[in-house]
């Protein structure tokens, strides 16, 4: 039998019962669109997280003191369980292939100009922090190594802070107060805009870590130490060397475990993607269940259709249709029904993904592989769930089909 003719009958029968066909397709439409949307949300989140982690800097290694609760148990006497400036100095001296190094001691503070005040995060960092973060300057300069060494009262403002304290005018050269310490504005960072999570990346100020430690927080410890390796290839060796230096510096015995944590960007990316990957899988499978339910809807309607059209099947057989002709006809009908549902589902998911991107902080992506897969799968659903009713129709005896009331 001719395919074109079979397709024509399929469309005719689908259009004959518009409402019923639509309701049947609805299951597949919801199934397909939810699979695409869910997987899109999962993968969008994954991409966003990866991007965020990468925006921390390039070839970055982060060093934190270990969680004292765990470290305290296994520590030998004399260990500090803190990262100090001495540790940093030793790392600079002994570890090769380091491009930039900077502590980050942050604190939420009120910063005050003559007329305005603004609450923001103050980061005590080294002059190399600019390189780590790849900051460019909108105005003025980043503070220098010399200013850093001598705890100068200088500050670099994020764009948001600069605009808040000095609306409409340049802030360079102005003096502002951080916890009553007067500091001079030497530079304003170029705007980085809001991050992927919607957070304002320009809402911060940077001062030399020495100034931060000596004059503002008074703390002697470094909460985070950023090291960036000269290239991707040496990240692992830099990490190992930093660890060795810190163990010696902290006088850890070989039986003691590390009292610090070193993580690289790729560690974090990996961990995050494994979590989002699982989330994607979970969301995708839940959506897959609805596609399955949609398939059952198709099977149900095809069974009804076979029953309703038993006499038609009989007539076709009486004029020479073979079992296979009838089988193919009903299979194609089921496939057209579910494929049409699949196409509509793809359209709807496209619109939903577009709207989610505009109106929410979610950043779902339309993954071509998933779209193709959903299309193939919805066709498959038609064949799989259409097979049983179609076979039932094809195995009818001509006379039984003709006599069916």
């Amino acid at each position, binding site marked *: 039998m001719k395919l074109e003719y079979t397709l024509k009958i399929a469309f005719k029968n689908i259009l004959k019962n518009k409402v019923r066909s639509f309701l049947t397709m609805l299951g597949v439409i919801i199934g397909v669109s939810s699979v695409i949307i869910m997987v899109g949300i999962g993968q969008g989140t994954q991409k966003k997280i990866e991007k965020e982690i990468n925006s921390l800097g390039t070839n970055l290694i982060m060093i934190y003191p270990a969680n004292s609760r765990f470290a305290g148990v296994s520590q030998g006497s004399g260990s500090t369980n803190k990262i100090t400036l001495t540790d940093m100095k030793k790392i600079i001296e002994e570890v090769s292939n380091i491009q930039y190094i900077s502590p980050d001691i942050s604190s939420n503070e009120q910063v005050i100009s003559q007329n305005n005040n603004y609450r923001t995060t103050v980061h005590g960092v080294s002059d190399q922090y600019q390189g780590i973060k790849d900051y460019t300057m909108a105005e003025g300069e980043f503070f220098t190594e010399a200013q850093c060494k001598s705890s100068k009262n200088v500050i670099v403002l994020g764009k948001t802070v600069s605009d808040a304290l000095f609306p409409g005018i340049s802030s360079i050269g102005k003096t502002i107060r951080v916890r009553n310490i007067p500091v001079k504005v030497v530079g304003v960072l170029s705007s980085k805009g809001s991050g992927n999570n919607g957070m304002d990346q320009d809402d911060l100020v940077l001062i030399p870590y020495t100034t931060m430690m000596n004059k503002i927080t008074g703390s002697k410890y470094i909460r985070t130490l950023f090291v960036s390796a000269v290239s991707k290839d040496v990240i692992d060796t830099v990490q190992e060397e930093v660890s060795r230096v810190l163990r010696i510096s902290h006088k850890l015995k070989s039986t003691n475990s590390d009292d610090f944590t070193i993580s690289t960007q790729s560690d974090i990316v990996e961990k995050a993607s494994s979590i989002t990957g699982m989330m994607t899988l979970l969301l995708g499978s839940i959506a897959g269940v609805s596609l399955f339910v949609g398939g059952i809807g198709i099977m149900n309607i095809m069974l009804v259709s076979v029953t309703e059209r038993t006499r*038609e099947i009989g*007539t076709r057989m*009486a004029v020479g249709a073979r079992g296979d002709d009838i089988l193919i006809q009903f299979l194609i009908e089921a496939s057209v029904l579910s494929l049409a549902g699949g196409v509509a589902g793809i359209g709807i998911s496209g619109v939903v993904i577009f709207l989610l991107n505009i109106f929410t902080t979610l950043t779902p992506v339309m993954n071509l592989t998933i779209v193709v897969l959903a299309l193939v799968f919805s066709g498959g659903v038609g064949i799989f769930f259409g097979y049983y009713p179609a076979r039932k129709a094809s195995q009818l005896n001509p006379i039984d089909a003709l006599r069916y009331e």
Partner: protein
Amino acid sequence: METIIQLKQIKKTYSLTESVSVQALRGVDIEIKKGDFIAVMGPSGSGKSTLMNILGCLDIPTDGEYFLDGVSVKTLNKDELAGLRNEKLGFVFQGFNLLSRTTALENVELPLFYNRTHDRKDFKALSIAALERVGLGNRLDHTPNMLSGGQQQRVAIARSLVNTPKVLLADEPTGNLDTATSLDIMSIFQELNDQGITLVLVTHEPDIAQFAKRVITVRDGMIREDYQVKNRKSATEEIERFKAGNIQIFTESEKLHQEVV
């Protein structure tokens, strides 16, 4: 004349339950020559439809042998039977059995789609030719609900003709039609028979049987009588007489028809 159909001791038993069964045919022998026109008559429930369904390869006998055009039908599988129905047989039903919401042309094309010998591009021409043979060349795009009963039956006849079958089988083709329309249908059948098609037709109206060449009567699943029609009538002539107002010849059979319905 060459034999086209031969039935040898055909039996058909329907088992209703394990203990109850109906013997619809109890050993039927018939031989039909090419070009014959047979009317099968008999009371309701006598086994006429069962016989026709077996002749049409829509059903298989419980016992006995059926040769169609020299081939023993019981040696064929389902697909081969479908091929036989498609190529050698045409079946006309009492209830027309047209596909609804499908035009006359498409209905007539149906057997061609299941045929493996014709070319797609010839379908339309063949179907139009078949519709013209039954006088419906001007109703190609009408769907069954736009056609009268007689017109629907003519579409069904065109459908059964489109693959140029050897035998045309019709189970009470005029059972749902009024007198004038029945005459129309019978004149088409006579014309087809004149063109060489073998016809077997079931009717319980003696007047309809008068248009056939040979009458076989069935009772309780057995052949009772088998005779050649004397003074065979021409349906075309009867139509003229009917139009002239002389409906006298039909009153009797109409009464009979009324009783049955």
